[in-house]
């Protein structure tokens, strides 16, 4: 393998990996991702060295000016953090492409590496999947290859300047310039063993990184950065819901949340309640936030409701929900059931501007959240609401026209059913049997779309079905409301959890039945699952399981997890004297957690300081490196260079001084004195006379410029 070619290939692998990581976050538009990828690929086969125009200063200046202008337009005019973020990502793509198309020397590669690292950083801000970890490992391996070869190349170019040959026939030693190109094209410098060894080192480095990851102290300072993952778009979880305006999420497989129910046998389906709508008018549902109150988050536990019989608390089920950042504020809870309490991570309290609210009907919303959230719900069986008749009246509201038209239809359907639960059952089964489910939406003609659904089209999606059932029930004076949430049957056997995707969004009805409370009725006909190849399904489940594990054990790793790990490790050593517990466990852990973090951070800071001081210290007992004297000579040589005296290869300072003296240049005496001072300091153990050196340097600099030799006339 030729050195230069290997360096180029691994450099491209590294920057492309970083770009792919960024592209996979979905933060870049598809056209930009493809365009950048094409540009990166194209630049691989382009050699700027062949085009002298691209090596000139004018080209460089014009290119940088264009990039600067474009960047200013993209970023400078950003009015919000989101637009600044988007503009910044576009600028990164532009910079990377520019650098790759302008690989004139080794330094350009370095700049491309820096851009790739910033891309990686940007991806880190917004990505949270297992694919990220895999790509990060690849990036690490490629980075190790790349940085090593980059370093070797730079060392070659900086050190392989001269080759000294012993003089022949009694002559002085000769020096000749080394052709670095020859070494760059050599096949003997790096080969497969080198690359394989580096992969092994990369693997060990990755394990070490993971070990350090566990050890690094975790804190969460309450200053939130404006850069977050783009929020997942959801439909039907806002304050309003308009029939027929949307609903085409059936084909979107993006995971919205993952749900664990520890200690419970897996159910066939899982229904997660998001928002409920109470008021209907002209095809629009809207919420009525009855009794909404802001909840305080203390120590990560939010008590939503803790009243009820002792039996309810004993039979409460715990559900762990890992929610992706959604553009809606709803927190999802298992349905049917009554939420007793909500456990939030401690970091939630630190999120700037985030707060929780809960309504009387148990609808929980979080405001200001832009990050993934893991919370646990403790829910019990549904109980009979204790609201007043006035409070329940909103679930019976119906305009007179609707009531008149729908009541006739409802009465025909329910026929002789006497009780509300029988009537609800008949209405629900009627809709399921006589209406068809479709995601091909028809356009409402202008009237109330529910009549078009019931009387004309007789097909629609779940929102039509739920709306129809709720309104038919209300026409019979039975309190009902539509609920939007998710209904999933996708059980991941690898990770033992339910996967909820955007395509699982669903709408159903909750009916208030005497003595039973709010009961769920789902009038939507069952849909056939989307057919998939078995191995694709398996692979998908496996990736989901890995994603879940990554999120659970890596992304969720916090100071509490650190403490648990520490406790588990310390329990491996038997204690002679068990510690006396003086306070309650809660009070003990409340002071131990911050102390643990403080000790960790303090230890890390001290270790960092000690290491940095140690590394900065020049070894005192080792022989000194004469940097001061070198600096003086370097300065003098720079001044002489301006006068046209370049130190030749292998030329000693004394020889240079003699050469200048032979020319009769006025700089000869001060330079000769400087050389004498330098030699006396360097080899005679005499201190460098700073004032004398300064005087001589000033004398050198004060000399008038040398007149250029007159050009011979033709």
């Amino acid at each position: 393998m030729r050195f230069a070619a290997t360096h180029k290939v691994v450099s491209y692998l590294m920057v492309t990996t970083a770009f792919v990581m960024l592209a996979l976050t979905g933060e870049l538009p598809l056209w930009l991702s493809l365009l950048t990828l094409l540009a990166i690929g194209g630049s691989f086969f382009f050699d700027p060295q062949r085009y002298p125009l691209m090596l000139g200063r004018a080209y460089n200046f014009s290119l940088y000016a264009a990039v600067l202008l474009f960047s200013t337009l993209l970023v400078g005019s950003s009015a919000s953090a989101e637009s600044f973020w988007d503009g910044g990502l576009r600028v990164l793509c532009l910079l990377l492409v520019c650098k790759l198309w302008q690989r004139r020397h080794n330094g350009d590669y370095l700049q491309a590496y820096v851009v790739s690292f910033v891309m990686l950083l940007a991806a880190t801000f917004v990505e949270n999947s297992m694919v990220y970890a895999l790509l990060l490992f690849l990036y690490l391996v490629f980075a190790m290859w790349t940085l090593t070869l980059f370093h070797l190349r730079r060392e070659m170019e900086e050190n392989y300047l001269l080759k000294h040959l012993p003089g022949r026939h009694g002559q002085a030693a000769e020096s000749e310039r080394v052709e670095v190109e020859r070494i760059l094209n050599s096949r003997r410098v790096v080969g497969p063993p080198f690359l394989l060894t580096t992969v092994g080192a990369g693997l060990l480095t990755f394990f070490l990184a993971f070990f350090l990851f566990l050890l690094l102290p975790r804190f969460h300072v309450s200053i939130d950065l404006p850069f977050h993952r783009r929020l997942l778009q959801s439909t039907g979880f806002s304050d309003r819901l308009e029939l027929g305006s949307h609903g085409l999420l059936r084909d979107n497989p993006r995971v919205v949340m993952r749900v664990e129910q520890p200690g419970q046998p897996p159910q066939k389906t899982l229904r997660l309640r998001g928002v409920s709508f109470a008021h209907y008018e002209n095809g629009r549902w809207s919420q009525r936030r009855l009794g909404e109150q802001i909840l305080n988050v203390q120590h990560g536990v939010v008590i939503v409701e803790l009243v009820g019989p002792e039996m309810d608390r004993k039979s409460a089920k715990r559900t762990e929900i890992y929610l992706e950042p959604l553009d809606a504020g709803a927190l999802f809870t298992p349905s049917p059931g009554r939420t007793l309490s909500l456990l939030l991570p401690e970091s939630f309290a630190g999120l700037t501007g985030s707060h929780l609210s809960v309504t009387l009907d148990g609808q929980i919303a979080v405001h200001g959240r832009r990050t993934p959230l893991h919370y646990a719900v403790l829910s019990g069986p549904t109980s009979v609401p204790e609201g007043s008749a006035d409070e329940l009246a909103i679930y019976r509201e119906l305009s007179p026209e609707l009531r008149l038209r729908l009541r006739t239809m409802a009465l025909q359907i329910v026929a002789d059913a006497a009780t509300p639960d029988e009537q609800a059952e008949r209405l629900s089964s009627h809709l399921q049997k006589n209406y068809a489910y479709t995601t091909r939406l028809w356009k409402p003609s202008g009237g109330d779309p529910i009549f078009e659904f019931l009387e004309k089209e007789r097909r629609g999606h779940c929102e039509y079905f739920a709306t129809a059932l709720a309104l038919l029930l209300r026409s019979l004076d039975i309190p009902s409301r539509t609920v939007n949430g998710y209904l999933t049957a996708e059980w991941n056997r690898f990770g033992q959890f339910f996967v909820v995707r955007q395509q699982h969004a669903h709408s159903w009805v909750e009916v208030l039945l005497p003595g039973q409370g709010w009961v769920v009725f789902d009038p939507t006909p069952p849909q056939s699952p989307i057919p998939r190849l078995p191995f694709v399904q398996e692979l998908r489940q496996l990736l989901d399981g890995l994603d879940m594990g990554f999120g659970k054990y890596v992304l969720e790793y916090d100071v509490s997890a650190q403490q648990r790990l520490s406790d588990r490790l310390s329990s491996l050593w038997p204690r002679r004297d068990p510690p006396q517990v003086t306070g309650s466990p809660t009070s003990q852990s409340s002071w131990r957690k911050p102390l643990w973090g403080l000790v960790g951070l303090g230890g890390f800071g001290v270790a960092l300081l000690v290491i940095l001081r140690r590394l900065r210290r020049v070894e005192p007992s080792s022989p000194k490196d004469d940097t001061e004297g070198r600096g003086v000579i370097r300065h003098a040589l720079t001044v002489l260079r301006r006068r046209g005296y370049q130190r030749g290869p292998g030329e000693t300072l004394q020889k240079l001084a003699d050469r200048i003296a032979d020319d009769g240049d006025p700089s000869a005496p001060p330079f000769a004195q400087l050389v004498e001072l330098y030699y006396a300091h360097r080899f005679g153990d005499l201190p460098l006379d700073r004032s004398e050196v300064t005087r001589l340097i000033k004398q050198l600099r004060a000399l008038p410029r040398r007149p250029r030799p007159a050009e011979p006339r033709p």
Partner: protein
Amino acid sequence: MSLRLYTRLRGVRLTRDGWWFCTAGICLFFVALNSGNNLLYLLLSMLISLMVASLVLAEASLRGVVPRRQPPSRLHAGAPFLMGIALRNDKQRLPSFSIEVEDLCDDKVVDKRCYFLKIPSGRTQQTAYRHSLPHRGRYLFSAFRISTKFPFALFRSSRYIEHRSEILVYPALVSLAHWPKALTTAVGDQSVMRLGRRGSFHALREYRQGDDPREIHWRSSARRQRLMVREHEVEAVQQVTLYIDNSLPVDKQQDREELAKLEKVISWGASLGAFYLDHGYAVRLCVRSDDPPLPLLWSPASLQKLLTTLALLPTVSPEVPFQKPPKLPSSAAVPIAEHGDSLVVIRSGAQPPREKHIGHVVEAS
């Protein structure tokens, strides 16, 4: 921390790239701390582990490499020379990459570096650095500093390897082209070319490196089972006595200018001595010293003796007398002619010795 690790860490310094890397890491730490984003912590851990890997790989690269010095046979003050450096990789399998070797002369790092890109395992590579030593005398090359920035140029890891060599630097030889003719040609006009090889047989002795192979006496060599060479007597030679005044008053022995003048004197003396020996003169060297003088020098091969003496010539006070000139060898079959002898006194401000044969006085100014 073990002592070994501690002493090794002392040879580790952050490079400029390393400082940038650390700065990026610290910024990342604060951002991770602030945001609580665990992936940022993972990235930070990756940066730290890359630094650790860098230290470990550098250590692996430096381990098992053995440097050796190959000095030239003769060097003069101020004259550039090539110091050969050989580096051997004693590791069983791993090659060493990107190693810089610096020499330590009198416990100071020589400002020339030898760079080795790759040394395969079990192999030796050689290179040289060009250098010049400004003054005559004995130089002690005590150790090597081998260092590497491999693999990522974040640190410069270095290690000292003791390897002692003493190198004698002869006085600088200057061109005599601009000197008074009397010194170089007037004396030469009276000379009779030395007939060293063609003179009468004097004795047999063992062969020494540098002897003319044509002088090997094969029959004696065969009989004694070792090489023997013939020695001839010099038939007639012009003799020059070099008086080199190596004294300085005590109060001026630290004066840089005076010392420089004295060095110039010694350099001229060495140059004249080399010239005369090269042109067939017998040279007597007299310096201010309590030690006995050198025997009469009369062949180019004895130039080394002259130069060695001058290289190690100490500065003394003017009270120290000149050495007595060596007597002529009494056993010489043909005595060296005395009638045309010249005396050259090279002094630096001090009074020349009162001798009747003073021919020329060269003063350093």
